[in-house]
């Protein structure tokens, strides 16, 4: 297994510390900081061959995924960069090997090639050579990635009009910046009704409802409690949700309560649409309830104040943050490139990440 260099080790543990300290911040912010970390790792002069860089990045990715299992953006962005590095190297090799047929390098990963290459033959690309300009290219690639992140909320919101129609009743839960942008965009053109599930005990739904109600083109906003979900679902045309991580099987790690919501939607045959920026798409799988770090619990203070001496210590209180939602309960993902069915998430995964790197985000 790859080892981190001391400088990289310091950068990574500093990153872990800061991220843990910040606690609950929007995942977008963590993504930006991860890109910053990756820039530092790439510009570090310690590596010369591509293999060294890949080794460093894989070690960093593994450590980050283990230390910050609840931050989806961290591992996935490392994988994105790894894929970039491998592609750069491959493209370079091919140009220099001056193929007799003059095959364009872009075909390197085509479906045809994959099928014909046979197992095990292709991946063992030799990365041990030194490549001039790789560092600059990767930094440019990271800048592109940054642009993609910056635009992703807008790109997702662009799809809003094809999903939300006039006089629709839309249901959403908690507060997700991506979903809010999506609804805001739709509200510019159409009048519709939004039911916001409050997202107890954290109350994100309240803030989301306040923001929606403050829009200039008035959307009709109704806030409901989690317990009222099933009763209200019959009136709903569409459920639009944010997500914490999209897992490799198309399932979700989503704020707690989402599975109940998705089941209610399934019962009433209401489509569930999930807005997912690309950095939330992870090659990670859900492996059952015992998976540590998957269902992070936080302080039960918001369930019952610690000051209440009559109950604290006598009753067991837990406050989990996440739910697993199986892929069959999700109708459609809206990413910055458009809609995707849960069953085609694997295609996106192959587009974004190299298969060799999938394992580093498995905790």
């Amino acid at each position, binding site marked *: 297994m790859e080892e981190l260099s001391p400088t990289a080790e*310091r950068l990574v543990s*500093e990153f872990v*510390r800061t991220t*843990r*300290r910040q*606690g609950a911040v929007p995942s977008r912010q963590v993504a930006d900081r991860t890109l910053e970390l990756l820039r530092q790792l790439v510009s570090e002069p310690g590596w010369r061959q591509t293999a060294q860089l890949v080794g460093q990045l894989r070690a960093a990715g593994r450590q980050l995924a*283990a*230390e910050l*299992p609840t931050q989806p953006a961290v591992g996935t962005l490392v994988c994105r960069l790894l894929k970039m590095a491998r592609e750069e190297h491959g493209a370079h090799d091919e140009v220099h090997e001056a193929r007799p047929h003059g095959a364009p390098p872009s075909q390197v990963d085509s479906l045809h090639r994959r099928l014909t290459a046979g197992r095990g033959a292709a991946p063992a690309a030799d990365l041990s050579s030194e490549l001039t300009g790789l560092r600059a290219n990767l930094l440019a690639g990271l800048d592109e990635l940054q642009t993609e992140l910056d635009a992703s909320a807008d790109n997702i919101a662009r799809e809003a009009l094809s999903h939300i129609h006039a006089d629709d009743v839309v249901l959403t839960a908690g507060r997700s910046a991506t979903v809010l942008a999506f609804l805001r965009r739709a509200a510019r053109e159409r009048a519709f009704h939004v039911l916001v599930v409050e997202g107890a005990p954290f109350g994100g739904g309240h803030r989301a409802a306040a923001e929606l109600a403050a829009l200039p083109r008035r959307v009709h906003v109704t806030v409901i409690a989690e317990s009222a979900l099933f009763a209200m679902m019959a009136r709903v045309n569409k459920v639009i949700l944010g997500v914490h991580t999209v897992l490799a099987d198309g399932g979700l790690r989503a704020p707690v309560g989402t599975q109940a919501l998705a089941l209610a939607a399934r019962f009433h045959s209401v489509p569930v649409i999930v807005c997912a920026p690309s950095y939330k798409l992870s090659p990670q799988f859900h492996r059952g*309830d*015992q998976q*540590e*770090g998957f*269902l992070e*619990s*936080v*302080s*039960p*203070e*918001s369930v019952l*104040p*610690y*000051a*209440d*001496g*009559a109950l*604290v*210590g006598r009753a*067991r*209180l*837990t*406050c989990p943050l996440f739910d697993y939602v199986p892929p069959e309960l999700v109708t459609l993902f809206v990413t910055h490139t458009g809609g995707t069915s849960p069953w085609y998430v694997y295609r996106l995964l192959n587009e974004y990440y190299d298969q060799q790197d999938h394992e580093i985000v498995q*905790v």
Partner: protein
Amino acid sequence: MSSKKGLTNSLKAEDVVQAVLLTDNFSDVLAPYCLDTPLSLLPLVNVPLVDYALEYLESSGIHECFIYLCKHTDAVKKHLSGTRWLSEDSPMVIHVQTAEDCLSLGDVMRDLDAKALIQSDFLLMSVDCITNVDIVPIMKEHSARRKNDDRGSVMTLLYREATPGHPVRRHSAQVLLAADAETGRMVFHQRLPAAARGRVTFPLHIFQEQSAVELHYDLADTGLSICSPSVPQLFADNFDFQTRDHFVRGIIVNEEVMGNTVYHRRVGTHYAAHIDSQATLLTVTQDVTDRWVHPVVPENRCPHRADLRCSQRNVYRHRTAKVGSGTRLEGCVALGAGASVGSNCRLLRAVVGPGCQLGDNVTLEDAVLDAGCVLGDRCEVRRSLLGPGVQLAAGARLHPGCVLGAGVRVEGAAELPQGTLLVGRPPEDEFGGGSAPEPSRLVGAGGRGFTFLPEEDEEDTLSPLRLGPAELPTAELSDSGESSEEETEDESEERLDGAESPEVVDDTKLFYSEVLDSLVRGFQEKISPENLILEVNSSKFAYNVTVQELNSLVVKAILSVPEHGSDERLAAPAFLARLQPVLTTFMPLLTNYIKSEESELSCLRALEEFSCDHSAMSACLAKVLMLLYQRDILSETTILSWHADSEGLSPEAVRVRQQVQKLVDWLQEAEEESEDEESEEDSS
């Protein structure tokens, strides 16, 4: 170091956020569990306390931290050098201060003052405080108040709300405080013993001076306080300040003189607890495994998070821990590195330290096992603390409240009754010599363990069990919270002794006996009254006695002089005969102290209280009053108003007042006459 210095230099001096971390609690409340372990290395869910504290300080944005090592300095230093805290790239600069001669918080503060290490407001934290409070904004609040509103504000004490009877405060000294409702300025602070019941007296002036006063009995101490840079200096100026409570009391009492103030603040929804007893240690352990202190949770404290897995029901298993088949980890269980648990065990709210070996069919409930404990098959441990390396043979049973120190070995299927305290090595004989103490019979033949005797002078009157029962009986719970209404009136006389905090009692009692000694000596050796006044005044400052207390105590002391040294009580005539010369001698003293109407009243009350339990005195009270009246020490208006104010009197007091009825009648007549005269004069 250069990079670190760069960091602190790049900030302006007053922007550097400083903290002082005490690694000792200067008491042995946690003995015998950590008799030989330094407090800072005491494991809480298998992580030393000092790591919690440093991690907290770093993550909350403290730039500079002074760690004070007072005991076991080498062990703590060794631990610190093995961690990342002292490495160069740590964002927090840590200065390790060794001060083995510091025996109290006061000594540490005086040392800080001597070394002039503090430039700005700083956080004072004890290593036994577990918290996730966002401290920097609170510190900013304190600084802003000091700059804008109240220059004299020297300290902000942080409290966590917790209803009376809450597990986190049930076994600790209770906090009772009164504060200005608008600003949070504390005007009264008192500690009550854990199981205290009865009345509490608040001085009236605290209600008169503020427009609104909040009284709090719903707070638990957090061990966190934010101090102004002048605090070390104040400690240096007042060499009798030993603890924070002394300091707070001193500041509040002398507020008008010194102009310094103390504030309190609640930490809101954050968690903060101060481990000040073994019962609290258990509670806090449970709170940490219950994730109340999130993000301070066991898997985040582990150097490599991936090593410790948290599964549902808050079970924390180290990667290397082994669990046998059929074992139920029922909830809130932490298994340390290399721990092994046999088959068919049952663990509930238990911490198993690294390297512990548990046999089959073991039951642990509310138990904390330090590193390397070995438990045989069928052991049962309930609500107990086991120090490092404790060995229990198969079939041993520990009832709730047992604490076994390091290295205790229990042989045979022994049964340890509730509240057993054992240590692994014979207690040190302070007087030297004497035969080596016998090992306790409880540990069985071949076992090792000596009964631990807590030191006598402790204020640990909380409960016979130092660990405390899991639940107080409900009856006790229900009325410990509210002041009991059914208490009869005659207790009002005992308020001074009964309900005040132990400290207050001690101080006033000490003061009283000291004053009495000076007076007796003064009377026998004919020392001039001026010198006596000086002596009394200096005692007043030494014991922080208020002026009102002083007046009444001096009067009482004078009255006890005649009988001083003899056990039997004198009859009324003999007593009077002896009292008269005493009073004449001390007349200058009385004239010095009894000047205002208020002091006259407190003098009268002292006379009354003294007479209540002294029959001879009550018989000649009228004569004494007459004498004082003639010497112009007591005015007739005060005597009359004292006598007229007869609300809520005990039967004795009523009897005493009847004794002086004649005198009062006479005074009243005299007054009327004089009024008549005056009016005549006016009219003429």
